[in-house]
């Protein structure tokens, strides 16, 4: 039956092309996955340096559960091993795109200091940064001034910061017994 043979041959060829393709992609994944993780780590360190100063480093860190946006926290200390505060990494999205940021809280006052954007895939990303994030980082009381050209993004950032504050407060009360 020549027809059956043709179909089998067609199927085999398509299958083998797909298999080789999957193999190539898996190989690339092996090469690049580590570098991508390293990039993320570098970004986190850069973020902590922006918030706390250049000699900030991570004392320890762990995942957070049961929070709407907060996924991870870092206990930050400086080069003299003084505890600087908690930095909480949050991740969330709205209809305009994904946002992932680190919100830094000061150990002395438990207050919000500033934030560092890791991923900003909002459609109006530059507006969000210029009109909300940059003023906020200069003056942390402007958290609720969400009406800017990218109000939805700003609202998401505000909710994430508030969620991070709840997480940080819980960590401090756990620390203090």
């Amino acid at each position: 039956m020549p027809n059956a043979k043709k179909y089998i041959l067609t199927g085999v060829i398509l299958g083998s092309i797909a298999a080789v393709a999957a193999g190539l992609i898996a190989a690339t994944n092996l090469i690049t996955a580590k570098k991508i993780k390293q990039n993320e780590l570098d970004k986190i360190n850069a973020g902590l340096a922006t918030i706390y100063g250049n000699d900030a480093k991570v004392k320890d860190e762990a995942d957070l559960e049961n929070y709407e946006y907060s996924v991870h926290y870092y206990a930050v200390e400086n080069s003299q091993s003084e505890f600087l505060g908690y930095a909480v990494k949050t991740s969330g999205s709205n209809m305009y795109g994904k946002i992932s940021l680190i919100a830094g809280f000061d150990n002395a006052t438990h207050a919000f200091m500033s934030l560092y954007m890791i991923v900003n895939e909002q459609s109006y990303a530059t507006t969000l940064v210029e009109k909300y994030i940059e003023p906020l980082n200069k003056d942390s009381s402007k958290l609720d001034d969400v009406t800017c050209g990218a109000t939805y993004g700003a609202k998401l950032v505000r909710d994430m910061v508030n969620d991070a504050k709840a997480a940080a407060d819980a960590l401090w009360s756990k620390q203090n017994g």
Partner: protein
Amino acid sequence: MLVTFILAIISSMLIDNVVLSRFYGICPFLGVSKKVKSSLGMGIAVVFVIMLATIICWPLYNYVLVPAGVAYLDTVTYILVIASLVQLVGLFIKKYSPSLYKSLGIYLPLITTNCAVLGVAQGNTDQGLTFLMALANGLGTSIGFLIIIVVFSAIRVRLETANTPKAFKGLPIALITAAIMALAFMGLRGLFTGINI
């Protein structure tokens, strides 16, 4: 919840319009037939394909690819799903409306290369949207695309008989029209700033 869903649809339909702001689906948008009826047919076919693609690709990613650890095969999978869907929709149209099939002609297989379809499917999982939000994104995008190409083909019908400078005839004047439409839609950006949800 419902309010968020509806607002999400409206935002991807009007505010962050798929063609005029996000630039998906430009090729069919510019090459769209100057007959309003066939653009309507094409737009409806795109709505079908995008909705089916969203409904198939989102669960495929979250319940098959990610648990298997091969999340990076998303692009390959999506494009194969989309290509098959377009074939199926084509057969469906051929059977139930041969006249529409004939008037769509070459534009039907071109839905596979429509950036909007893959853009929505890929964007849903890249942004980590929930299934409801992914549906809203798909619905808003596809209906927004439909509205835009119908309006645009109606304008192009008029442009055909207008007194255009010779160098601008055809595509350039169509692009300027699109620019004016894009400007108009930019004005919708402030639409929801007053709402508190």
